[in-house]
């Protein structure tokens, strides 16, 4: 680890700690409305001011961090799992299965999911609690975000397929499933970790994009994307620079994730 990576790791740890301690640190519950002071500037009681409904911005930021930083890795885990299963099986088995998987990957990469998500969202039932809707939002991202990883993993699995040790294992009568689970997957494990790690910042960004378009986490639950919706009106941000804090935090976290990441050469 070089110094920059160390610094990034420390920053991430601090932010994670803040997130865990959110319940103790926050000045007020995130949904509580102080209706006498909407759109207030920073003060002792509300260090980051309040939003349009008078809700404490710091509390919303900390809880939003919790939502984004807990669920983005969960979504990344899900998508990496899907990619690992599909990718390694496709690369290992080859033939028409590989072709089908790669075609499916191509097509789901090409589909404009953004507006298809709109219709997927509308299919959800109404009476689910806010937390469940948040989890569903990330679940959907996880289910729809596996394509890039599949390609990488498939290519690597193809490499493993042609390797000597696998030939040896095969010639000694190892069954394909066992080959896949005991020989191919362990060899690809570093790649899985790398893919998982790369996906986290991507999902954080995706959530932000979706929430800005109104497809992400629903109010009054805060998330980084929800907090960024205020940016639609940049002139307000220019007048109240503390509104930039969520964006800065998001950028810092994503940058830290990228820095801590193993370099692209290792991954590809």
């Amino acid at each position, binding site marked *: 680890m070089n110094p920059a990576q160390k610094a990034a790791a420390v920053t991430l740890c601090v932010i994670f700690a803040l997130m865990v301690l959110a319940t103790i640190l926050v000045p007020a519950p995130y949904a509580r409305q102080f209706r006498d002071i909407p759109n207030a500037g920073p003060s002792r009681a509300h260090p980051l001011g309040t939003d349009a409904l008078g809700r404490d911005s710091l509390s919303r930021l900390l809880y939003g961090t919790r939502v984004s930083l807990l669920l983005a890795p969960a979504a990344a885990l899900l998508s990496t799992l899907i990619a690992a299963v599909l990718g390694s099986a496709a690369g290992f088995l080859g033939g028409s299965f590989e072709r089908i998987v790669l075609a499916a990957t191509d097509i789901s*990469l*090409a589909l404009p999911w953004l507006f298809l998500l709109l219709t997927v969202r509308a299919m959800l039932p109404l009476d689910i609690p806010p937390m469940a809707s948040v989890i569903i939002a990330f679940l959907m991202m996880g289910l729809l975000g596996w394509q890039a990883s599949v390609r990488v993993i498939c290519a690597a699995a193809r490499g493993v397929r042609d390797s000597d040790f696998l030939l040896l294992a095969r010639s000694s009568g190892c069954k394909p499933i066992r080959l896949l689970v005991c020989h191919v997957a362990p060899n690809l494990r570093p790649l899985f970790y790398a893919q998982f790690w790369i996906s986290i910042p991507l999902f954080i960004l995706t959530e932000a994009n979706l929430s800005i378009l109104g497809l992400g986490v629903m109010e009054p639950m805060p998330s980084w994307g929800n907090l960024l919706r205020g940016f639609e009106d*940049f002139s307000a941000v220019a007048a109240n620079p503390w509104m930039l804090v969520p964006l800065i935090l998001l950028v810092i976290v994503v940058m830290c994730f990228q820095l801590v990441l193993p370099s692209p050469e290792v991954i590809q």
Partner: protein
Amino acid sequence: MIRHAKAGILFRHGLRRVSFLICLGIGGALFSATLIRFAPGYGVQERELDPRWSAKSVEALRQEQVLHEGLASFYFHYLSALAHGDLGESESLKRPVRELLAQRFPLTGSAIVRGLGVAWLAATLLASLGLASRGWFYEASGTAVSSLLLSLPSAVIAMLAVHLRAPTFCAISVVVFPRLHRYMRSLLLRSYDQPHVLAARARGLGGVSIFWRHVLPLATPPLFALLGVSFAIAFGAAIPIEALCDSPGLGQLAWQAALSRDLPLIVNVTLIVCLVMLAANALADLAGRAFAGDTQ
């Protein structure tokens, strides 16, 4: 003779590939049509809430809407019309889809081409400057800028573009640039570390001539592949950016079509998006493979 046969094989391979792509594209379009068809709110219009309509008119509006009850028949009609080059008529905008696409596609196309142009120039410049100069300053600032841009959600970039009144292609180039820069940098870095480049440097060749004579030829083939990939990235980014910036391109059209559950429009827009994306990816693949063959 051998070359002839090889060309034939290549041609057949290409043909198969293209027809496969088209099938995939149509499959994707029909898939998204299915999704829209079964989405809640299909066949419902906002104007039904207008209290000025009489009951009879509302009934007539609804009658008018129940057109694609059977999805299979819709697919059949759509495909047979498509074979004749007829793309149907948009339900929400009441205009031929072909006309709509002809109006919107050039706008998106030019935004993407310009955006890509800017992004490529900037990425090439920054990456090669950083490496050729071997100074830490260029290197560090290039990396810092690209990773900062990489960390911004593209929706925020789009909103910034709106605020600064920058045209759409600027937002596209800002989205594409950091990805391009990253990849290009590692590519050039790898080329610089080749033994013959090291040897050339040891002999005291100038930075510029090393770059042009030794590094660039090595890096060119993967760069071509990168062109395809970057096109796909740009196209993918253009859709949400246009929807957010409200610029009258394909992205905005697609967004409206999804919001108004306009089946004929959505099928065609996804068809185009799918085909372009698939083609760009396939080209990248092909370029990568062809050059890999050459170097072998």
